[in-house]
């Protein structure tokens, strides 16, 4: 990972529009130069969103950098009749993926894109119909397959293909995996996702911020707090509505509670995938205890309904004694897993994602940290005034074992964070039940960045003068991490795929809005 330059800072681009954030409107011809300059300064592409402003289209590129927290937006106005943009795919891999998404949803064509194929909309969606345009109307009937959408065929003696999904044997989301293998060794894996496009970003449009929360809670069921908090931070940013440190501390407690129950689920599932079922049984027991704590704290096992724009409402603070006992339980499960030589052998060296690959693909969250990157929005883009030390990870080899250990170490860290925050939060459990103040006159925008349990979640909202949402763009870390899965799987054997997939545990719903 490139370290951002500390001194001297180049003056921020454009005008301040929000917290740590500046915006600049550029012509499409200047986009590449600006993007290159930002990426050279250590920025990453955090979000790219298309907008339909009525008479014209607009692309917004959000670049973020850490230490200190910097956010720069580039706005590119586009002609609605022939929207074209120079592609940034050569500069940034994630940007290339965002461009394909934007083309499928808005019809904005990235010029000179190296892989100008469909991404979000499958081949049974009619061409020329762009769902995010204001005048798109209802989705047309699905007709015949519109043009070929071939898989790359790998040829050679003994090469054969294994198609899996999109309907799987387990209770997981839909995704089609096409393995090209020789014997048991994977030569090439193509993952085709985007079977669950719900048009959720369009559903946000026209809602009041308070009514948008229920949608954000359902973006990805296991990331309720992460997405809701990101949306609320974005709305508060857009309204310039300051939120007290007390509120943010309670929100952080909820965020870490969500991390806890998801990480222990994954730890159990990883053990189960190597046939060590007893640890999964115990991990699920611990998960159930955590869900019940969630229920006591917020009144909902997945913590829906607790966070809202401008505040947070909880029923009780988590019981630290029980959390400590759970921490000891989890430590024992992890020790038992690694103490079994077969389990350790299955985890070690399996599906390695090198630091270079992780950085080039723009991976986030535990996938990135297991490969030695330090990206963590809790420190890179903090919304909490207090500064906590980063989690230190003992193993950063990028294999399944590293991703297992990163989760285990984050559990310890989260428990510590919850403990110290609960001690500072006392008494008042409900804060500012009212929605934020009126938005500023004219159109306003806000960005919320949260380190959800999977990684950095970014929401960007735009509010109309009457306070309704005109555009919400949601970026789940899964969008960045999915391309890393096939890369890590090169030269892995087919029976190790489920284990590897579980170690990434990416969201289907969070990836496909």
């Amino acid at each position, binding site marked *: 990972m490139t370290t951002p330059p500390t001194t001297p800072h180049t003056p921020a681009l454009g005008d301040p529009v929000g917290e740590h954030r500046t915006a600049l409107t550029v012509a499409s011809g200047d986009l590449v130069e600006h993007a290159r300059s930002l990426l050279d300064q250590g920025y990453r592409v955090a979000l790219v969103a298309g907008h339909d402003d009525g008479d014209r289209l607009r692309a917004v590129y959000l670049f973020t950098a850490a230490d200190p927290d910097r956010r720069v937006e580039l706005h590119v106005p586009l002609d609605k009749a022939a929207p074209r943009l120079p592609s940034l795919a050569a500069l940034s891999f994630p940007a290339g993926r965002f461009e394909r998404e934007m083309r499928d949803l808005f019809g904005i064509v990235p010029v000179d894109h190296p892989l100008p194929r469909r991404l979000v909309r499958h081949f049974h969606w009619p061409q020329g119909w762009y769902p995010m345009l204001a005048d798109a109307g209802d989705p047309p009937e699905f007709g015949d397959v519109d043009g070929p959408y071939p898989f790359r065929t790998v040829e050679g003696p003994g090469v054969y293909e*294994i198609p*899996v999904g999109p309907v799987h*044997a387990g209770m997981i989301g839909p995704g089609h995996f096409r393995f090209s293998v020789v014997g048991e060794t994977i030569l090439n894996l193509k993952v085709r996702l985007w079977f669950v496009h719900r048009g959720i970003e369009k559903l946000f449009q026209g809602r009041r911020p308070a009514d948008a929360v229920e949608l954000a809670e359902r973006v990805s069921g296991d990331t309720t707090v992460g997405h809701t908090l990101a949306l609320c931070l974005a709305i508060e940013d857009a309204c310039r509505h300051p939120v007290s440190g007390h509120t943010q501390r309670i929100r952080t407690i909820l965020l870490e509670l969500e991390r806890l129950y998801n990480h222990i689920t994954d730890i159990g599932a990883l053990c189960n995938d190597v*046939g060590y079922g007893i640890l999964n*049984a115990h991990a699920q027991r611990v998960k159930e205890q955590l869900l019940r704590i969630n229920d006591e704290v917020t009144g909902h096992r997945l913590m829906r309904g607790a966070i809202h724009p401008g505040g947070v409402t909880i029923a009780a603070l988590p019981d630290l004694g029980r959390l400590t006992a759970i921490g000891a339980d989890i430590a024992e499960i992890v020790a038992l897993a690694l103490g079994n030589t*077969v389990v350790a*052998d299955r985890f070690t060296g399996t599906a390695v994602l090198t630091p270079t690959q992780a950085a080039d693909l723009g991976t986030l969250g535990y996938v990135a940290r297991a490969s030695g990157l330090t990206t963590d929005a809790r420190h890179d883009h903090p919304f909490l005034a207090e500064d906590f030390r980063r989690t230190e990870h003992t193993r950063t080899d990028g294999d399944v074992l590293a991703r297992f250990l990163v989760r285990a170490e984050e559990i310890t860290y989260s428990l510590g964070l919850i403990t110290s925050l609960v001690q500072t939060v006392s008494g008042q459990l409900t804060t500012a039940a009212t929605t934020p103040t009126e938005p500023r006159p004219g159109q306003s925008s806000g960005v919320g960045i949260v380190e959800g349990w999977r990684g950095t979640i970014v929401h960007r909202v735009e509010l109309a003068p009457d306070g309704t949402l005109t555009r919400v763009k949601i970026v789940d870390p899964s969008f960045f991490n999915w391309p890393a899965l096939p890369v890590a799987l090169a030269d892995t054997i087919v029976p190790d795929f489920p284990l590897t997939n579980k170690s990434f545990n990416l969201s289907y719903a969070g990836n496909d809005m």
Partner: protein
Amino acid sequence: MSALGIVGGVVQPVLIVAGSPLLVGVMRQVRARLEGRAGPGVGQPWRDLRKLFGKERISPRGTSEVFRVAPLVLVATTLVVAVVTPFVTTDSAVDPVADLFAVVALLALGAVTLALAGLDTGTAFGGMGSSREMTILALVEPTLLVSIFALSVRVGSTNLGAIVSATLHDPVRVISPVSLLAAVALIIVIVAETGRLPVDNPSTHLELTMVHEAMVLEYAGPDLALVELASAMRMSVFLGLLANLFLPWGIASTATPIALLVGVLALIIKVGLLGVLLAAGEVFLAKLRLFRVPELLAGSFLLSLLAVAASFFLA
């Protein structure tokens, strides 16, 4: 053909067919309880079979007779083994078939037929499962033959009844190096043959890691019931063979009702106990990486070779 043999030939298959699903149920229940789960109860495999037998027969488009016949062949071969092998009685209904080589060949025939059925579906999973099963089978069968052969050397016959009777009359043989080496080799073989941990995970839902389950993925209804029943029977047959080759006591050598009753009870207790031990052991095991399985099986083959060598030199 003795009266004892005929009685055995009737009692044994009935016992194995009726008891095998219960054995599977016991093993699952033991594992569930040890993992802190309630478990579905011992009778669940029989309930599943009843449900599956009540469904209509259905086979995937493009499959041939191989696919339809395979479950029957699998059940039939296992049934023949259940009839002839000395489980309850030392005498066999069809004595020439109660031969080491014949029994192993019958069991292998069932496995190969199922692998062919897996290939016949033409799906990637069927082929993958068959390929893996054949890899394992190719390493397992020699071990199976050689380890039982080690026991037959001292008896001078490859007839299983003769081997069991000889052990019955000379119990000291059980604690010889030959027996111990062969027993360890045979246990590993049985674990591999019946698709248990650490070779295969019988309870996985992950298509890509399956061995046995991948082969039978396309079966449904009564055909699936036959495959499941046959798998359960093979497990009982292997455990019964293991029990009677090394601990034959209780087996009926006369055709009196008391002796037969003791024979039946002894088999149930021995196989049940072995099943419980196997299930309990599985709780502590994880599944080996597929490419490590040959190392385990090669180790078991080495043990069986040592058993044969020992049977010649220590005789």
